[in-house]
């Protein structure tokens, strides 16, 4: 990111003179907003409650340490989502009348879990399932919180996969089948690899959403970044820890967001090059 030309390309600007214009207009706009905020009547109180420097330096390391749990939840959930969602997408695409019930179930799954607000799934699973006291079923809030995220995000990611699978031209499957490959082999070697390549950017987009939704697990009790901020805030009667948590979440998602942009730009360049040839 040291190359300013590349940075401005990614952010949608131009080079040279337009960079200067972009910088100037940015300063003006943000300067004006800052001026309005700082000169407002309530600013001294807001500054004390949300932007207290002592509170900031006190809470930052604690919230940062708690953020480790968010990252763990994210990484574990991500792996399961990638596998689970692909299975659902494939089940939903099975042809023929025999598989109608399977398709129906897969469709119902994506409809239900995209329909229920994530916060409700976390509550229902996190408080409901452990209360059943079933033997052999984990009762940890962390487990059910993560499971909720897996269930919800798998529904979204399954749809992303499905769009990718449907975007692979049927002639590719025909070519594979005509060589004697089975339907499963055609999916595995020919269709899914091409589909996954095409959906990496929207997939990462969903994962950016997942990164910040890890905070919802806090509702069940585990002390992750948001919950830690809440605890400090409640004892110090100050909202600055929330600002700290917000900044840390932004810092967490930005690398993935820029990486996604970069992938999209690369993919477009590759396609354009292919079109010229």
């Amino acid at each position: 990111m040291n190359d300013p030309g590349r940075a401005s390309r990614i952010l949608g600007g131009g080079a040279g003179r337009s960079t200067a214009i972009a910088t100037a207009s940015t300063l003006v706009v943000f300067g004006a907003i800052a001026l309005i905020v700082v000169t407002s009547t309530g600013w001294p109180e807001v500054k004390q409650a949300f932007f207290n420097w002592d509170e900031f330096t006190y809470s930052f390391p604690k919230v940062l340490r708690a953020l480790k749990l968010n990252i763990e939840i994210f990484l574990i959930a991500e792996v399961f989502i990638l596998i689970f969602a692909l299975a659902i997408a494939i089940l939903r695409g099975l042809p023929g009348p025999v598989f109608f019930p399977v398709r129906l179930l897969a469709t119902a799954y994506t409809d239900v879990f995209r329909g229920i607000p994530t916060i409700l799934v976390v509550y229902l699973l996190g408080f409901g399932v452990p209360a059943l006291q079933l033997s052999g079923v984990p009762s940890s809030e962390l487990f059910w919180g993560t499971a909720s995220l897996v269930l919800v995000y798998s529904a979204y990611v399954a749809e992303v996969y499905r769009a990718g699978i449907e975007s692979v031209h049927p002639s590719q499957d025909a070519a594979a089948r005509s060589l004697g490959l089975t339907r499963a082999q055609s999916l595995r070697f020919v269709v899914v690899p091409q589909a996954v390549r095409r959906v990496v950017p929207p997939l990462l987009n969903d994962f950016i959403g997942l990164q910040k939704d890890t905070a919802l697990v806090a509702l069940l009790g585990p002390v992750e970044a948001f919950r830690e901020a809440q605890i400090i805030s409640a004892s110090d009667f100050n909202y600055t820890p929330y600002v700290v948590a917000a900044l840390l979440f932004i810092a967490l998602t930005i690398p993935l967001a820029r990486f996604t942009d970069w992938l999209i730009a690369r993919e477009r360049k590759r396609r354009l090059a292919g079109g010229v040839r």
Partner: protein
Amino acid sequence: MSEAVRLEDVHKSFERNEVLRGIDLALSEHEVVCLIGASGSGKSTLLRCVNLLEPIDRGRIVVEGQEVTAPGVDLNAVRRRIGIVFQAYNLFPHMTVLRNVTLAPREVLGLSRAEAEAQALELLGRIGLADKRDDYPDRLSGGQQQRVAIVRALAMRPQLMLLDEVTSALDPELVAEVLNLIRELAEGGMTMIIATHEMSFARDIANRVCFLDAGVILEEGRPEQIFSAPREERTQQFLARITEAGRL
């Protein structure tokens, strides 16, 4: 000569549209049959039915004595024995040339990687493309891609090859290299059904030419007879249009 493939009263409809209205066709081993006819006459559908990519509505297809349209037949096993090459090549764009050619031999026939690659390089060498082994298909010209597609089908050592207008998507200067490869296959004794718009090629290579019209084989015979003295009026009209277009 023994019979390689036989179609009996094959019917195929898409929705309300009856594309094949009773096709009867038999090929001996080593025979090359060219299908000619206007677009939409059913040539592609006929080939896709022989390869069981499309289930037929009525009739039978017998390959090497086995009725492949009988219920319970393993479609994958049948397709292994029949190679098909498409108009749009349909190479796998995410795989190198070598992987395109070795995928099915390894996964379907169970060849080891070394065996499959040795065979693929031998075949690619024969068409002068061994040095393209590690390239992706989009780096190749259309003619090269189509020749790789033919080799990919050959790598399964098929008993029958179906070629579906394999030169129609090519620039004119690239047609010859593909036709020459097909000619070599014919000389090598490969049994083939070839749907084509290249009339001079058909005349040259075919043991028999079938003129398809509205889903039936309206006329068939030796190429000299079909091209020089067609009996049916529709055949005459079709060939006249082709001649006007400068394709004969």
